[in-house]
């Protein structure tokens, strides 16, 4: 309790104008780094708002969800142009993510913010762990999954050697992980693209490019499900959501424009270090009940 009071006393007194400019600047960096590294900016918006600007976790989650939608819808045309999105898989798995998001949004009011902070730390650590791994495609061998056949999920994607056919496996397991991704997205105000890629890439064995672009399609839809609930519940504070949305959107659009292959490797390493530091901070503050 003593620490709780101290943390509020440490908050610097600023005007609305100053806060908006600082938050817009920080969100711009988050959007830019998120687009350049492919890890998404949403994952660091919430720690930035809570740890740096002492914003209540619920306002931070509301503002962050809005920026997740902006990035997803803003980048849609660029992703479609590449021609990898599998709309059938996307819409089928969205049944799981939207139900997960609505349940997560319903649960969030019952879970103490300190527990959410610890959960956030764990998800950040997992994101850092995944970002250090190389992505490899594991084409499906053997008989097709009966669910995939029934739902007509198999498709093709463009490669330098022409169209390549692919199929998916373990559809029920992928569906279950997507439900979890939806819950996490609502509880923490993130896109949870990392968990979505885990479901499609690792579990269902979709080609990497197909899973990342289909994931972008799904992130906005999932975030919209819980953002609606949070709007009604008063989590979306215009004074905060405005600089976060504009900042992240501008950062993400610029990032998509200057994106260029291998150069981002060192940037990815720096971003991973930032994520690990934020993870421990969220775990510490959550465990001590400071958030």
């Amino acid at each position, binding site marked *: 309790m003593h620490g709780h009071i101290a943390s509020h006393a440490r908050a610097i007194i600023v005007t609305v104008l100053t806060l908006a400019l600082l938050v817009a600047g920080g969100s711009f960096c988050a959007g830019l780094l998120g687009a350049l590294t492919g890890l998404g900016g949403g994952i660091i918006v919430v720690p930035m708002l809570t740890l740096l600007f002492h914003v209540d976790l619920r306002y931070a989650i509301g503002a962050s969800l809005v920026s997740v*939608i902006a990035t997803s819808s803003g980048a*849609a045309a660029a992703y479609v142009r590449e021609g990898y999105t599998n709309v059938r898989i996307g*819409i089928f798995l969205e049944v799981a993510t939207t139900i997960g998001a609505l349940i997560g949004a319903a649960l969030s009011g019952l879970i103490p913010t300190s527990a959410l902070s610890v959960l956030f730390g764990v998800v950040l650590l997992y994101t850092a762990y995944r970002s250090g791994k190389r992505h490899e495609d594991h084409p499906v061998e053997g008989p097709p999954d009966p669910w995939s056949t029934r739902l007509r999920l198999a498709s093709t994607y463009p490669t330098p050697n022409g169209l390549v056919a692919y199929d998916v496996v373990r559809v029920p397991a992928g569906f279950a992980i997507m439900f979890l991704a939806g819950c996490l997205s609502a509880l923490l105000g993130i896109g949870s693209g990392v968990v979505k890629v885990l479901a499609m890439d690792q579990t269902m064995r979709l080609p990497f490019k197909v899973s990342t672009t289909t994931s972008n399609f799904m992130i906005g839809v999932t975030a919209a499900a819980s953002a609606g609930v949070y709007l*009604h519940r008063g989590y979306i504070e*215009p004074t905060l959501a405005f600089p976060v949305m504009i900042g992240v959107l501008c950062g993400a659009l610029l990032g998509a424009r200057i994106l260029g292959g291998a150069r981002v490797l060192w940037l990815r390493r720096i971003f991973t270090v930032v994520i690990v530091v934020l993870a421990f901070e969220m775990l510490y503050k959550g465990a001590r009940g400071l958030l």
Partner: protein
Amino acid sequence: MNESDQTHARADHDLEMVIGRLLQIGVLIAGAVVLAGGVALLVHQGGAIANFSVFAGEPPTLSTLTGVVSGAWHLHPAQVIQLGLILLIATPVARVAFTLVAFWVQRDRFYVGVTALVLALLLYGLIWGRG
């Protein structure tokens, strides 16, 4: 893959491109509304002390569709921002609605049903959702 499948896939892709462009336009319009409301807010209330460290929840004028629309109609800056944010939240909903139409045109009954379910869940959250 035979020729008619390829024509089909091509038509799908073209439709997806149109949807992607519409979403981009939607985001830009939402962003412009948010920015206009935001600038007005900073001009009017920029000097106030900011304190968001304690959660109070937004009043109905900022957290219900009717409250936001009537406030935005009178050009109250905070409600103009919220209106832009609601437009933004509507963009993925529109994407799902377009997908529904695309499956309908293809006479793919099963996926029309799946897409309608997702759309219903989204509208539930946006219109009635209190969690």
